[in-house]
């Protein structure tokens, strides 16, 4: 249901504005009107231009919020208690401290980032270093030799390289290989320093790259490079640990404080942003807005209690021109609340319109049950719904599970009425008493029943449309809808009269009445009104899908039983029946759900729901 709203004006001394907004926000039941109402009779001065002091305060707070936010982002999220400090009392003194703290945090962060990057770069060589270290081993002592490290693309190059080196330096060098942890094939050439330049040139000519190391150590020999890199890696680890410890110390001391400051600043700025839509004079303020009618008294009482009568709350009449602006809040009993899941698929209705939820809540499970109409399938879906609810889902999942629970109960009910349990064979097996006609054979009765249901549903929609038009004082619209209702009733009576043994008894007067009503329809709704009428008849015919989907559902179940029976084997037949019925259940879940929704969204709601409502969003913490 759409909750009744009240239009309120809250007035008080200007200096209490922020305190009043704070109380309103704590209660969370009042939505300030952003647009300025032109109908107000209050004589207020032109306070459109914000005061210089207010702008300066806003800029100061915004700057503080930005600084405190950055400090929080730069510090590690260590566990801290909550700060109980009142930010208002220390705000001025903290402004300078925050600046220096921000500089400290930035410096720490930059140092941390720089060392971390260096460590990351050095770690990349770690794998190669480990492999080279293994190759050099006890040859560390041979300081007279030059060591050249290379990476080899594949093992076939090893022999080729050995031959090349043997030819080049006539056996005055050795080459050993190993595989690094990342799979790279590493080679280490040990040679006298006099032979090194020739070997390096040959490697360059053969496009066999030396191990890549930072340029800063390019002039060092391989063992020197290795030891240098190991030392740097160890140094960066220590340095990083020191910076992190320093940041942790800083965070433990200041993080809770800055979190408190930041939270307070965010709330304060939110309040100040609301003040932009508040009308002010040199002495007082007036806040216009909306509150749920049943929340108006507690709001008034609380403001009186806090401000001792210095703040007045006045309820204003909702005028016709206000109807477009009234925010909309929906509130439904627990049974209907899950169906708001479907309502959320539609645009919010206007305040003067209707909440679609109760209608979906009543008719959706009914249509679903009529279409599925099988006690066995219903039980399976009921078990699925209970299983889903047992897992305690939240939000949309919980709503969907509850809708499935209700809809499957209707499917079981109609299954019993149709005497169907996994098809008609199951019903016969369980000796269910058939109360409603057999769906697979009584096609015409089911079609007539579906159309009659559709006519009733659409007529209800049209009737609600009449009430909406009357509420909005749109007389022409209301008359047009009443004539449409009369014509639908005439057409339905005409259809019924044809089923009578002597149709001419009723047919003639009904045709006469229809002929009389048609000109009035054109007069009230214009030339397009007859087309709208035809569309409404089309909407009613669309309800034939209840019969059609129901028929396909029962035929599918019967086909599953028939095919399973054809196997001639108990186990194979049971497996086939399970598989085929599983397919039928999945189809039986989606098709009726989608078509029941479609009947509501397209055929029913188009008759009386007016979209374009504004959601009620009260000021809250």
């Amino acid at each position, binding site marked *: 249901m759409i909750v009744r709203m009240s239009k309120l004006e809250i007035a008080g001394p200007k200096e209490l504005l922020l305190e009043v907004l704070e109380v309103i926000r704590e209660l969370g039941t009042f939505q300030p009107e952003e647009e300025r109402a032109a109908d107000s009779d209050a004589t207020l001065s032109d306070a459109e231009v914000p005061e210089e002091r207010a702008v300066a305060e806003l800029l100061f707070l915004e700057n503080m919020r930005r600084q405190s936010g950055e400090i929080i982002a730069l510090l590690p999220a260590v566990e801290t208690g909550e700060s109980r400090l009142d930010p208002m009392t220390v705000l001025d003194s903290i402004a300078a401290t925050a600046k220096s703290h921000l500089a400290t945090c930035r410096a720490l962060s930059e140092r941390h980032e720089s060392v971390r990057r260096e460590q990351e770069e050095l770690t990349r060589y770690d794998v190669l270093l480990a492999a080279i270290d293994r190759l050099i081993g006890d040859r560390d002592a041979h300081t007279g030799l030059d060591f050249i490290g290379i990476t080899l693309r594949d093992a076939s190059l090893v022999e080729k390289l050995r031959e090349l080196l043997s030819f080049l330096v006539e056996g005055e060098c050795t080459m050993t290989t190993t595989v690094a942890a990342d799979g790279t094939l590493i080679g280490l050439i040990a040679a006298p320093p006099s032979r090194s330049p020739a070997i390096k040139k040959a490697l360059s000519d053969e496009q066999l790259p030396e191990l890549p190391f930072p340029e800063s150590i390019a002039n060092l020999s391989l063992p020197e490079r290795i030891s240098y890199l190991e030392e740097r890696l160890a140094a960066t680890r220590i340095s990083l640990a020191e910076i992190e410890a320093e940041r942790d110390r800083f965070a433990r001391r200041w993080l809770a404080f800055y979190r408190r400051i930041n939270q307070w600043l965010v709330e304060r700025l939110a309040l100040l942003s609301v003040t932009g839509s508040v009308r002010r004079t040199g002495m007082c303020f007036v806040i216009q807005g909306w509150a749920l009618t049943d929340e108006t008294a507690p709001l008034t009482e609380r403001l009186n209690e806090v401000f001792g009568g210095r703040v007045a709350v006045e309820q204003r009449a909702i005028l016709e021109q206000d109807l477009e602006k009234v925010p909309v809040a929906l509130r439904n009993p627990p049974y209907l609340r899950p169906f708001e899941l*479907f309502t959320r*698929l539609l645009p919010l209705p206007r305040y003067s319109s209707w909440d679609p939820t109760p209608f979906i809540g009543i008719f959706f499970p009914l249509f679903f049950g009529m279409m599925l109409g099988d006690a066995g399938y219903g039980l399976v879906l009921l078990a699925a719904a209970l299983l889903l609810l047992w897992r305690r889902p939240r939000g949309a999942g919980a709503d969907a599970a509850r809708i499935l629970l209700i809809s499957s109960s209707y499917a079981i009910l109609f299954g019993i009425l149709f005497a169907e349990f996994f098809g008609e064979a199951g019903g016969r097996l369980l000796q269910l008493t058939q109360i409603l006609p057999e769906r697979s054979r009584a*096609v*015409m009765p089911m*079609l007539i029943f579906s159309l009659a249901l559709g006519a009733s549903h659409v007529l209800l929609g049209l009737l609600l449309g009449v009430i909406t038009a009357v509420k909005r004082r749109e007389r022409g619209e209301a008359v047009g809808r009443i004539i449409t209702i009369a014509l639908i009733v005439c057409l339905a009576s005409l259809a019924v009269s044809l089923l009578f043994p002597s149709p001419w008894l009723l047919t003639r007067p009904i045709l006469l009445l229809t002929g009389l009503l048609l000109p009035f329809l054109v007069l009230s709704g214009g030339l397009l009104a007859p087309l709208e009428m035809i569309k409404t008849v089309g909407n009613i*015919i*669309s309800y*034939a*899908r209840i*019969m*059609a*989907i129901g*028929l*396909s559902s029962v035929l599918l179940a019967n086909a599953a039983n028939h095919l399973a029976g054809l196997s001639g084997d108990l186990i194979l037949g049971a497996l086939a029946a399970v598989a085929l019925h599983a397919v039928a259940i999945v189809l039986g879940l989606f098709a009726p759900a*989608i*078509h029941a*929704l*479609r009947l509501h*969204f*397209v055929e029913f709601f188009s008759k009386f729901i007016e979209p374009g409502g504004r959601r009620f969003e009260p000021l809250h913490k």
Partner: protein
Amino acid sequence: MEKALICLAAALAVGLCAIATAWAQSRIGAAGAGTIAERPELTGTVIILLAIPETMVILGFVVATMILNK
């Protein structure tokens, strides 16, 4: 011969409607997939829109059933 014609009429009633529905759903489905890619919150609405052309095949099915039961 008469029975064959009745069956043919029923098959045409449901078959042609099914083709029309399939064509309409292919267009809506393609547009709907694009819509969902940009605004996933419209999934429910797209599913409903996709179900709208099914009216044709459902009514075709009803007509076919009526022809066969005549």
